[in-house]
């Protein structure tokens, strides 16, 4: 295991150090005193594990394909931007546009998440991205979602998820599935999204992902699973197909 003290390190230097270690075959890296360094672990395709102590900067794990990243604090904006594979676990809150265009892998956030989380996430062939948010989220969750699975728990975070559900949920959604634990008012939904019945296969998906989430974040899976979930799916695969057709 290698350790890097990121105190005062410019982001380019920090990322060079990480890459050097990975190239030398290091598989477990601990970062301490991280504060605002951007682009950590971006584009790394190896099966490594990075633990971050401190608040990482924007675009954490962007384009990555394989690593597991554990953030022991909050994270900022753009976590997992266009990531292709691997896992990011955030033990605090996460900012806006996390999982932007995410194509595979998993993102587990314990606390609240910002606005537009999962915007345009998508699945392709055997790739199917998952985001689980333990707290509440801002407006435009899963905006333009094209594939994958989004789970919103509203149990943890600043007010234990007791805030207002974000507005415009799933605006422009045309693929994938959103599961929300607890009540959902139809007026919070974006255009083109509707409720769907939870089937046995949905239950299986939820059961699997929640148990993995609970194990990673040390919370009680049974407690999460005992409540009702609502399933949201797009009403059309081409919501804007007629937008400019007169």
């Amino acid at each position, binding site marked *: 295991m290698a350790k890097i003290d990121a105190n005062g390190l410019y982001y380019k230097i920090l990322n060079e150090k990480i890459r050097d270690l990975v190239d030398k075959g290091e598989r477990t890296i601990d970062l301490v005193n991280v*504060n605002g360094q951007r682009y950590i672990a971006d584009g790394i395709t190896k099966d490594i594990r990075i633990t971050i102590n401190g608040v990482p900067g924007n675009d954490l794990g962007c384009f990555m394909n394989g690593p597991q990243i554990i953030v022991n604090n909050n994270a900022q904006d753009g976590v997992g931007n266009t990531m292709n594979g691997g896992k990011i676990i955030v033990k605090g809150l996460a900012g806006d546009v996390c999982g932007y265009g995410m194509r595979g892998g998993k993102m587990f956030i314990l606390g609240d998440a910002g606005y537009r989380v999962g915007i345009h996430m998508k699945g392709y062939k055997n790739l199917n991205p998952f985001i689980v948010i333990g707290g509440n989220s801002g407006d435009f969750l899963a905006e333009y979602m094209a594939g994958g699975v989004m789970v919103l728990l509203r149990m943890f975070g600043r007010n234990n998820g007791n805030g207002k559900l974000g507005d415009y949920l799933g605006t422009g959604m045309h693929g994938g599935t959103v599961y929300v634990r607890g009540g959902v008012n139809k007026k919070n939904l974006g255009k083109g999204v509707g409720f769907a019945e939870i089937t046995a296969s949905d239950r299986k998906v939820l059961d699997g992902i929640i148990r993995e989430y609970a194990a990673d974040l040390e919370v009680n899976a049974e407690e999460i699973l005992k409540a009702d979930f609502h399933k949201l799916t797009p009403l059309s695969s081409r919501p804007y197909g007629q937008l400019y057709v007169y």
Partner: protein
Amino acid sequence: MAVKPSNKFGGKDFGGCGLIGIIDTSGTPLPGGMIISSLCTMKERGNGLGSGYAIYGVYPDFREHYAMHLMYSSDNAIPVVEEHLKENLEVIHSEPIPVRRVGAIQHPPSFWRYFVNVPEKQRGNGAGQDTIVRVVMEINEKIENAYVLSSGKNMAVFKGVGHPDEIADFFRVDEYSGHTLIGHNRFPTNTPGWWGGAHPFTILDWAIVHNGELSSYGTNKRYVEMYGYKCALLTDTEVVAYLFDLLIRRKGLSLEASASVMAPPFWKNIQEMGEPQKSYYTALRTVYGSAALNGPFAIVMGFNGGIMGFNDRIKLRPLVVGKKGDVVAIASEESAIREVINDPEDIHVPRAGEPVIVRLKDAKK
């Protein structure tokens, strides 16, 4: 708390503007180095084409006088401005603003500060703020090569073209202190990166830093022009300073109401409200529609007595609030707060359009 100015983040990269406001609500002065370190954490958000600072509680010896900071792009303008000030105001004290030679900053304008009073006969209604506003507008609009950077009591703005560490170094920001500090680094998008275009934008003691674009600028500009404000600094954010002065000082709106004017609730949400909120927000949107800001923004405003931060109504720019004891910070990134507040007790992300207002416990400071 880390208070040393930091130059550690050295590169040049793409980003959006970065902003931060820090206040010690007990009124205890915070060192200027604090805002520099904090802003330099977000250096990636700017591109070296503009940085600036506002410091409140900075001139205790002249606290009763308006502190006018003047920028001269030609020294020929100095006597013209000084003549204009003497005609309209009492100049108590004037001096060049001390600067350091900084390698990265070539051919800077010159900077002077004037501590002024409004003479009895010029005051009109109120304490003379209208006179100060008029004089600022006259200088900005009519006197070539001269611009007023700030004009409030016991506050100062230092800004220009450069990275946050360079501008701080140039203006010796580390040598000042104040209970409220505002900082901004700029990534100009639609308007030129010139010295007058750096943030904060001010009038009287209102100082605005902004990340985003105002697509409503034309409407907002025409609206404030009807009340005598002149937009002369070639950047959309300028109009926000005048809007706050108009709405709060002249129209008597609260900070909360002015934020609801600029980032109004959607009509669909107003329809769902009960009374009296429904009538209240309908009236605000109807009466002050021309003061609504359209486009993405995060704004932090400083004033004598506190700071306010808020976002556009669909939150297209980031804003985070951190708190520890009497110190509260509002910034684009949490890391900028943690750079100067070790282990904050609370980190909070406001919702779209929700104003975060932090006041000095004793507003007289």
